[in-house]
């Protein structure tokens, strides 16, 4: 039977009792003969902190690397010479990919996402304007009882696999045609028609009547009270 000695290691500030307890148990399992010639009270063979983590060769970009948790340096109750800073060691894991989402090509060759609009040279997702001045794209034969702009037929199948009804609800989306996709922004193409006279354009802040959005009709300050009442300041609206 071997003689074991138990060494009391002072608890350093900031170290947790759990880690200290593990250190005590670890030392208690080692024979005293292995410690005597060593003036350093540390165990002779200590697990290297920078041991190579057993990372998988290539993880997906958004998966955290499966590195084993490393013990903080200040939890090792050892007066040995300071070891290399733990955070300067390069991670031996394979280099991860960039932390960017995959680039989406807006006009790829996948034909299953394409909306085949008649007359369009490119089969990208729809670029047709939905301004009231323009005819409705792809709505040459509207369903009976529906007006043209933004009145898709209920239950009309979409080329993208759905229809124009709200999921979980059979109400028709009031202003989006069925072939528009979710989470895609569309800006209607502007066509120049008539323009304001120069004095009126400077007063209204735009040359184009279709971009004229006076206060009280558009924007966040809707309602009978002007923005000045809500937010303070600002110039009174109106042209001389």
């Amino acid at each position, binding site marked *: 039977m071997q003689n074991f000695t138990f060494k009391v290691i002072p608890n350093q500030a900031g170290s947790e009792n759990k880690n200290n307890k593990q250190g005590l148990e670890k030392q208690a399992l080692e024979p005293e003969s292995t410690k005597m010639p060593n003036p350093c009270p540390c165990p002779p063979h200590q697990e290297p902190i920078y041991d190579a983590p057993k990372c998988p060769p290539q993880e997906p970009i958004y998966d955290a690397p499966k590195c084993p948790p490393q013990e903080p340096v200040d939890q090792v109750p050892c007066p040995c010479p300071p070891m290399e800073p733990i955070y300067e060691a390069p991670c031996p894991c394979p280099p991860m990919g960039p932390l960017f989402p995959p680039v989406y090509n807006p006009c790829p060759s996948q034909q299953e996402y394409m909306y085949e609009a008649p007359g369009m040279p490119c089969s990208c997702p729809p670029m047709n304007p939905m301004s009231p001045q323009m005819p409705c794209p792809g709505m040459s034969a509207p369903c009976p009882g529906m007006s043209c702009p933004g009145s898709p037929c209920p239950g009309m199948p979409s080329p993208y696999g759905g229809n124009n009804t709200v999921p979980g609800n059979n109400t028709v989306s009031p202003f989006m045609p069925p072939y528009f996709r979710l989470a895609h922004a569309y800006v209607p193409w*502007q066509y*120049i028609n008539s*323009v304001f006279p*120069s*004095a009126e*354009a*400077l007063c209204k802040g*735009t*040359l*184009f009547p279709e971009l004229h959005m006076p206060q009280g009709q558009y924007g966040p300050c809707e309602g009978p009270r002007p923005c000045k009442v809500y937010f303070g300041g600002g110039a009174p609206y109106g042209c001389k």
Partner: protein
Amino acid sequence: MAVNNQCLSLLRRIQQTEFVALELNLYLDTHPCDQKALEKFNRAQQELCELKNQYEQQYGPLLNFGFGKNTGNTWLWAKQPWPWEM
């Protein structure tokens, strides 16, 4: 140099024409082949040049340098009223 209503009116017309040219400039940035907009822009640009020339001949330089020349024997830029004096 005194500022009269005619000077302010001419300045106002310059501002208005500049705004029209700027709006058409922004439109043409995204519609470079729109002939109708190009025609309007060229017309606004020509009118703007005429108005600026008319103003400089009557009331002094609009810019300290870069547009017109200093007519006369004195430095006219410093003699005309500043914007906060108008």
